[in-house]
């Protein structure tokens, strides 16, 4: 059957109105689900990258993340992220040697206070026992690649890696 152009136009317009009626019930959900199944991930400069190892300490865990490398002109250094969790199980002062690469030798010595107030500003000192890592002195949260912050029930420390 040959449809004329006006008929096709009105059919398309009718279908559009019908699609509008379907948006809150079908279309919105389907499109949302479709997008979340695209396999995209948030840039690791923000997320810190996936956890590769967990170091068990007395009462708490240190999650070691995969090293994050900046893209193209991203104005940050490569870094590794270490998460101390849960915050409630941490002593008032953490002074810990951490084996980041899992070779059995400590790579970093990390020192920070754990204030009771969750909104208090944190400061960290990192001594580099392995020359791959950069030391940090009294660092707070100026850069994504060198910081200490509290996020929910964890204290995150990002240590820059030499390029």
């Amino acid at each position, binding site marked *: 059957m040959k449809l004329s*152009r*006006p008929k*096709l*136009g*009105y059919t*398309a*317009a*009718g279908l*559009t*109105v019908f*699609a*509008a*009626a379907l*948006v*809150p019930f079908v*279309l*919105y*959900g389907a*499109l*949302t*689900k*479709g*997008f*979340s199944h*695209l*396999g*995209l*991930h*948030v*840039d*690791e*400069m*923000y*997320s*810190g990258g996936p956890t590769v190892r967990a170091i068990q300490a007395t009462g708490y865990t240190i999650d070691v993340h995969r090293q994050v490398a*900046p*893209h*193209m*002109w*991203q*104005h940050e250094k490569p870094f590794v992220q270490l998460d101390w969790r849960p915050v409630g199980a941490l002593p008032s002062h953490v002074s810990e040697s951490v084996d980041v690469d899992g070779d059995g030798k400590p790579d970093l010595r990390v020192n920070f206070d754990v204030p009771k107030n969750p909104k208090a500003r944190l400061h960290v000192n990192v001594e580099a026992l392995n020359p791959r890592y950069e030391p940090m002195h009294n660092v707070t*949260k*100026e850069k*994504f690649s060198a*910081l200490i*912050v*509290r*996020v*929910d029930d964890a204290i*995150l420390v990002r240590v820059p890696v030499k390029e």
Partner: protein
Amino acid sequence: MATKAEFLSRREPRSVGWSLFLTLPIALWSFLMFAASLRQPNRSLQVAAIVTSVFMIVLFFMMMRTKSTYRWRRWFFVALGLLFPVGFIHNVIAMRGTMGIPIEEMIAGRTPFCFIPIPLLILPAALYKTVVFPGSILPHGGMSGGGMAAMVGIWLAVTIVVGKGWCSYACFFGGIEEGMAAVPAKAKVRKIDPRWRYGPWAVLLAMVLLSLALFEPAYCMWLCPFKAVSEYVAARNTVGMVQNGIFIVLFATLVIALPLLTKKRTQCSFFCPFGAFQSLFNKTSVFDVKIDKTRCTPCVLCQKSCPTMSLSDESIAKGETLMSCMKCGACVDVCPKDAAVWHIRGTEVAVKPERARLMFLYAAWAMAIMFGGSIIADGLATMLHVFV
């Protein structure tokens, strides 16, 4: 030459009964959309839902009765633009205590995601499968359950239905400048170089490339005027202070001062990269606005009334609007010869234009109620909660 007011008063109104009949589907849709809010125990939410629902129905009724679109749509759009910051700022302050986005919230993926960075994220997503935005991808993630998937889902759905009409029926920022443009009776600046129309494309191109190179949502970090009334980068250092300064200057210039001087939506017309990107969907939309060349004199009233400079002498001669047309209806309402008409692709120009207008408005107003209406209700509920 007939003025806009003279022409509107000449237009024959539709009967009350017939207008009510045409409004009935929208009234049912509105009650359906706000039914969930009415079941909430929160009194402010209930009142806000009822007021918004009635507001949207009355506006649609007036569109049917007067057969004009722009001035009634503008009430909705300005309300959306003014009430979005109210609800949004209240939410961010209640949840994190500040309008500034702290680095902790970015790392936690709780930065609220609006639609403007969507075109900037496409290349990094396509090339690296990476979203260069510190938010959550999941539909129920993010700060208050509105992750990127939710925003992308609603944008895609509305775009399928109304195309570039997003900028007139869904954008929760454009209403501020449209409100500002409505304040003066006459424009103080009338001569605008038409080359400014390329501004949004230039910003879009620059921001897409910068976002790919810097791996960050460059527009959000450096140029978004609406950061001034939503949330801004917490000023951790001098760079942050410069960024916030740029946001405030751009907002004061493009969203407040220039619309007051030109009576145009200057941010949308000269700057918004999302608007330029959304123009591409004018090619996929079944609804558009045409100029009937057999009736056009041309008096260029349509050109003067267009808030986004989407009509030029050449486009009028061709009987078309430019691809930046956002289907607000200003040109159709103002045309004294009924030469500017709503149109469905494939059909003849000016044959049953009111049918085309009705079909477009049913689709567009349904989206306006579903998305914009919920934002208006949220802003109203916040005001009731805070002040009453």
